[in-house]
């Protein structure tokens, strides 16, 4: 489903070249919950950006759902990102002057869905994260945990195959972090593949697989006790949102 082979990503300045990813290879199958860990500067976020088609890579190959993303135009990559990938960020990245409903609507707008379809998906996604009653609130009126749940609703409203989460609990207290992780597990149980970047071993332990990065390379595979496999299959989230 996601297959990276010998991916290298280099950041260049006039003086030096820094490998963010060096011959990085990873395969993730549908429905997996993979945690990517590693110290600061190890390449976790770069990996996530490359996986999410937000950054190009210098060499190697990357296939997403069997499509070689390297050959795609910006339009095609954007369409793929919009339809197959959901993002969750550490700092939520909600648009401050849009209310909750409008924030969740953003990816659906770019997909060109009809108004009625958008409304249904927004409602379902907000109900799933328990914020249907806050649809008219702007982000500033919500707590950090609620904002992250809105971000999750936005990420899943389009029923993506992948959820890419970059330190999703980094700005939350432990209680809220646990709630967010519960939510992510619930989503994974519905069949959505999740790639979670974190430096928190406790969170990583909740994933089915852990990929540890150092200097842009996978240094170690640490498999924790796998959670029960997702019960709903790949269409379960779509069914839940429908």
């Amino acid at each position: 489903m996601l297959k990276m082979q010998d991916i290298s990503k280099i950041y260049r300045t006039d003086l030096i070249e820094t490998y963010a990813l060096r011959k990085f290879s990873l395969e993730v199958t549908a429905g997996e919950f993979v945690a990517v860990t590693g110290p600061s500067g190890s390449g976790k976020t770069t990996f996530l950006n490359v996986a999410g088609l937000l950054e190009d890579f210098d060499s190697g190959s990357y296939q997403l759902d069997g499509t070689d993303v390297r050959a795609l135009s910006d339009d095609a990559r954007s369409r793929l990102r919009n339809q197959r990938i959901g993002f969750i960020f550490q700092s939520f990245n909600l648009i401050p002057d849009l209310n909750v409903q409008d924030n969740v609507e953003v990816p659906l707008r770019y997909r060109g869905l009809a108004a009625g379809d958008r409304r249904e998906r927004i409602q379902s996604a907000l109900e799933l994260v328990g914020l249907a009653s806050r649809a008219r609130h702007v982000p500033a009126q919500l707590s950090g945990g609620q904002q992250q749940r809105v971000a999750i609703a936005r990420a899943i409203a389009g029923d993506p195959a992948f959820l890419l989460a970059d330190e999703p609990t980094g700005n939350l207290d432990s209680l809220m972090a646990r709630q967010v992780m519960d939510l992510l597990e619930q989503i994974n149980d519905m069949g959505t593949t999740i790639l979670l970047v974190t430096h928190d071993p406790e969170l990583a332990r909740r994933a089915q697989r852990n990929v540890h990065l150092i200097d842009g390379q996978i240094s170690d595979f640490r498999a924790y006790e796998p959670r029960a496999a997702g019960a709903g299959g790949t269409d379960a989230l779509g069914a839940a949102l429908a």
Partner: protein
Amino acid sequence: MLGYYLRLALRSFARTPGITALMVLAIALGIAVCVMTLTVFHAMSGNPIWWKSDRLYAVTMDNWDPNSPADKRRPDQPPPLMTYKDARYVAGSSVPLHKVIMYTVDATISGAGSVPLRTNTRMTTGDFFAMFEAPFLYGGGWSAAAEDPPQPVIVLSRETNEKLFGGANSVGRVLRWNDHEFRVVGILDYWFPRPRFYDLNGGSFSPPEDAFVPFAWGPALSLQSSGNTECWKPETINNEQDFLASDCVWIETWVELPDAATRERMQTVLDNYWAEQHRAGRFPRPRDNRLTDVGQWLRDMQVVDNDNRVLVGLAFAFLAVCLINTVGLLLAKFLNAAALTGVRRALGASRRQIFTQHLVEVAILAALGAALGCLLAVLGLAAVHHMYAAAHLGQRGGYQELTHFDTVGVAWAIVLALVATLAAGLYPAWRVGRTPPAVYLKSQ
């Protein structure tokens, strides 16, 4: 998506009202200055009889001093006026469809018990009205039969008729023109060709004359021109006949030539006449007999001088400065919101969609700038109009007549604002679309 982009643009304006107002103001100022300058320039450089421009020809013959051109600033040009003798020759030709010889005199008119009016009267042959399409409110012009011998007939401007007869139909009424009784045969309607192409002496943007009288009355009453009279050689002039026979130029001469063949024939008539006169000792300069159409005539006479062209250039330079400032402000605004753009990119917006979104925002700015620019231009033109009107209280003509905001001006403003601002906004919109989203997603 267009509706969505419009909503996003309005939200963006609401997010940064100060910078938005600054941009709109900058665009509006640039547009207003350009429109004001262009409106005046357009009025000055317009051809007021464009539909007949290629049929009407000013006739000139270079009879000037062999050692010096008529106008040292324009040495390639013959004198714009003709001698009485030459003008009469042209007027006697049967080649043109219409022909007019004319000049202006100061005259006093009184009638119907009104206070005597000091007027500017055009002494002209009767073809004037048909040839220049002067519109009549009442009556009409006079026939060729009224010119030789001259009949005491007069055509009044609408304004003069209002002053003398309160605007009533005065055709058939008798008035006194320079102490002679004249019968009114026609009243012109409002008519103000800008520039006054048929006579550019004494102010290109002056209004037409107050009254019109058959040309032959001028020589008959020995009425001197109130316009330009230029002489170049020492001649003994003791009486009117001497003056009429002299090489002094003072008569405007126009012909209407309906097609190229007629034009060729008229040119031949002039050249033959020139050759004959040359043999008799006149026309010492190289042959330069011209039939100049209206457009070329306005250019030759430099109705729009270089100062005005420079002014237009400066206005556009000012617009460019305003737009460059707007580009800077747009860049600052768009890049300041690059984090939000990054989020949109992450959520599936393509570069093209981001570009379009920002271009819509720029288009709204352009529309607002155009609207405000139009308003400022109207106010500016009104201010200029009042300034000139105050300086020439009660007088018609002059620059204040050029400051009317017309529909063409509005179209200019809108096209100028949209094209210029969109062009200015292309780079910021493109630039923000190229911003790598990943940079901002971590740091927002």
